[in-house]
């Protein structure tokens, strides 16, 4: 398909001549083992498109997905009560006054582009200052209670109960679920992976929008 070939071409040109191994060696990362997957026929008990506007179903069913045969896997060797946990979300959070919001103007003009950058959200940020810049979901719940997307308070309670080892100081927020970010997210995704590795995080809890 034309769309799929352009997509992969863009991705290859964005990565350039450096291989994945070079990118990881810069941060002293050890790549995890890749496991080959065989998917049989899948039966779902839930409907992914129950609450979405109709255009989402059409886009998702016709999107040229990249075909993966393997999947990285890092087994957890520690008990949960010794793990350090960090949160990563794609809900488009940022801190008002200290960080720039995501680029909504350019997204309106160019629908195939999504802002791939991330923001660092510290654990003790004042909750009134955490704002959201994202165009494609209902933000009323997250404005009332940020724990719906980014459960900082809940993990604080788990830490004081002793169910997890500790909660990391810095958490990360990306923006959007937009197709064009795949060729640039490798840069920002690898940066976040390196930062998490420097902070010696054991487990990452991810929530989409």
């Amino acid at each position, binding site marked *: 398909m034309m769309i799929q070939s352009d997509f992969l071409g863009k991705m290859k040109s964005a990565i350039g001549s450096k291989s994945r191994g070079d990118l*990881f060696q810069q*941060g002293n*990362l*050890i*790549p*995890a083992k890749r496991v080959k*997957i065989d*998917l049989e*026929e*899948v039966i*779902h008990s*839930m*409907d*992914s498109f*129950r*609450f*979405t*506007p109709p255009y989402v179903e059409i886009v*998702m069913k016709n999107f040229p*997905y990249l075909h*993966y045969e*393997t*999947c*990285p*896997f*890092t*087994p*957890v060797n520690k008990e*949960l009560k010794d793990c350090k946990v960090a949160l*990563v979300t*794609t*809900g488009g959070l940022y801190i008002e006054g200290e960080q720039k919001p995501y680029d909504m103007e350019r997204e309106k003009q160019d629908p195939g582009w999504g802002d791939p950058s991330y923001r660092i959200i510290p654990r003790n940020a004042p909750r009134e200052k955490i704002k959201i810049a994202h165009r*494609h*979901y*209902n*933000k009323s*719940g*997250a404005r009332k*209670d940020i*724990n*719906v*997307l980014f*459960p900082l308070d*809940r993990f604080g*309670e*788990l830490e004081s109960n002793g*169910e*997890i080892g500790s909660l990391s100081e810095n958490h990360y927020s990306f923006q959007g679920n937009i197709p064009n970010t795949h060729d640039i*997210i490798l840069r920002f995704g690898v940066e976040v*992976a*390196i930062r*998490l*590795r420097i902070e010696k995080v054991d*487990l*990452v*809890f*991810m*929530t*989409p*929008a």
Partner: protein
Amino acid sequence: MIQRLIEDAGISTIQVSLMPYVLERLLVPRAVAVEYPFGFTLGKPGDRVGQMQIIREALRAVKTIEKPGTVIELPYRWVCEETDDPQWYDGKYFKPPEERRISTQSKE
């Protein structure tokens, strides 16, 4: 996907997902799926008990999932009151409740 990059770096991850349809096509190491609207991933705002339930199920799944690409679908369902509260159904993001469809979605 960000989750694959972080797992490749040697850090375990788990995702609370709202669309297992996409996870079937983009394989992810560990995931837990919930049928909630976008923007309400862990439940209703202020619902401390419901949020903790989903978080605890996800943390339990970190240990129990052995094969990457597994998605555990949780039985929690979005409960709306009979009288349509316009707060939840604003026409743009939500449709009124319909009967849940059970479908077979194979890899095509």
